[in-house]
């Protein structure tokens, strides 16, 4: 599967990354090489093989619904690029 420039554009948008034209060209070439290498995987038969998403027995550890101390607001805001009062300030989300 050869990756196209349009696909790189689409994927960059999904990944919220703006790429310069030279970057796009470079990534296109490198990704093409990488994906070509990935074709190796088609050599392996995986019919009837379950996919593995992790290596431990996953379970959902539950706890009692008891309020425990949380991060104080000033600490939560300490790294904020922009803040107003007790909130993070961001560009308008809904028009």
């Amino acid at each position, binding site marked *: 599967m050869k990756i196209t420039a349009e696909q790189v554009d689409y994927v960059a948008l999904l*990944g919220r990354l703006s790429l310069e034209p030279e970057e796009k060209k470079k990534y296109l070439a490198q990704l093409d090489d990488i994906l070509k290498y990935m074709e190796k995987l088609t050599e392996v038969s995986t019919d009837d093989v379950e996919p593995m998403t992790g290596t431990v027995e996953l379970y959902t550890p539950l706890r009692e619904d008891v309020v425990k101390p949380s991060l104080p607001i000033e600490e939560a805001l300490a790294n904020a690029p922009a803040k107003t009062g007790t909130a993070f300030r961001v560009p308008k989300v809904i028009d």
Partner: protein
Amino acid sequence: MTDLCEMTAFELSRLLHDKKTSSVEITRSVLDRIEAVESNVHSYVTIRPEAALQMAQEADKRLASGNGHILTGIPIAIKDNMCLRGERTTCASKILADFVPPYDATVVRLVKDKGMVILGKANMDEFAMGSSTETSCWGPTRNPWNLEMIPGGSSGGSAAAIAAGEAIVAFGSDTGGSIRLPACFCGVTGIKPTYGAVSRYGLVAYASSLDQIGPIAHDVPDLALLLNLICGHDPMDSTSVPLEHPDFTSFLDKPIKGMKLGLPREFFSQLQDPDVSRVLSDARKVFESLGTEFVDLSLPHLDYGIAAYYIIAPSEASSNLARYDGVKYGHRAEKFDGMIDMYCRTRAEGFGNEVKRRIVLGTYALSSGYYDAYYLKAAKVRTLITRDFKDAFESCDAILCPTAPTAAFKIGEKVDDPIQMYLTDVFTIPVNMAGLPGIAVPGGFSEQGLPIGFQLIAPHFEEGRLIQLSAAFQKVTDHHLKRPSL
């Protein structure tokens, strides 16, 4: 007389116990060494001398009052992807250049609980994506054995600091080999525990099903001490396993006669480098002299490990790194036009090339229309690789193999050739894919004097076997005693 900064935690602990030195003295020795060599080696992103000496003073008080632990007063370097409260944690990325965590990672809390001395945050590949520590936004770390060579990655700073005497012990993290590879290239000892053995709370996530924190030190006994500290269930990490771990130091003197070491055909047939072949062959002879037996075995899906990993890891990374959006912390672009543009510019400005490449690759592999062919396929191959190891361990106690296909290479040599860089991880990646524990042990040197090591792999939660085998090896060899001249 050896400098304090070149001794092991065990040795220093004994000196502290016998009141022949103090934590302040040890810490000063390490800080002096840092001052002398750091401009050449660049192991650190952040060094905190005053805070470290403060911790050393407190450690000395604690030791004097008789409440000391064996690790109290020992200086440690912590890879810059583990949160240290109040000190910047950057993951070697511009996007977190000024990020100061409001909390400690669990492993950091454990270190503080025992009164260890935190020297600073070690350099790394950006967001742990790399095998050479060249993608750090702060510049590369150099191999203390030859400053033109890479130290390995992504925990290159941690490993180099140990080799250079800039730390006594260190924490690294390993997703595809990032503890074992730099340990190997820097001639030090490092272990990646079983997935789930050590809490990932406070470890900035790269690939959540593969990441694991582990110690790097001069020798196996120090690793055992640190494993005792950090292995254990943590309610803050739901992937940490509720398991009672053994006292790893109890494995240090166990004989290894009769243990079976598996030699995977595919690993050895891939070996082309004569230095690495020689070191593996020498290691084999040493184990033989200690009474181990060898079993020839096959891991037929080894060849597909890299392809599967470089789909799975970037896919998970594309998800994990979605949080860096300039909203709550980290870099935010100054000029943008609306919300989506803010995200796009923030991330474009904040991330380096390798990170962007992997985000694009991962997003592509997970996108509609490609998910089955790439991510799902890779996840199935992961099952096959895990099965290979399970079968292999039916006939052996541990697997002996190389850590890296070559010794360290030159800085800049592979930076523009991603696939060549990825191939460095051929022997380490399958271990993460299966979630197994793996240890990198110094085994010798190349013709050019660069360290080469070997790797041992054990079944899940059998770190004890790795300690046992490696400790026995280090009792009759001296590679781990060598120090670079800086």
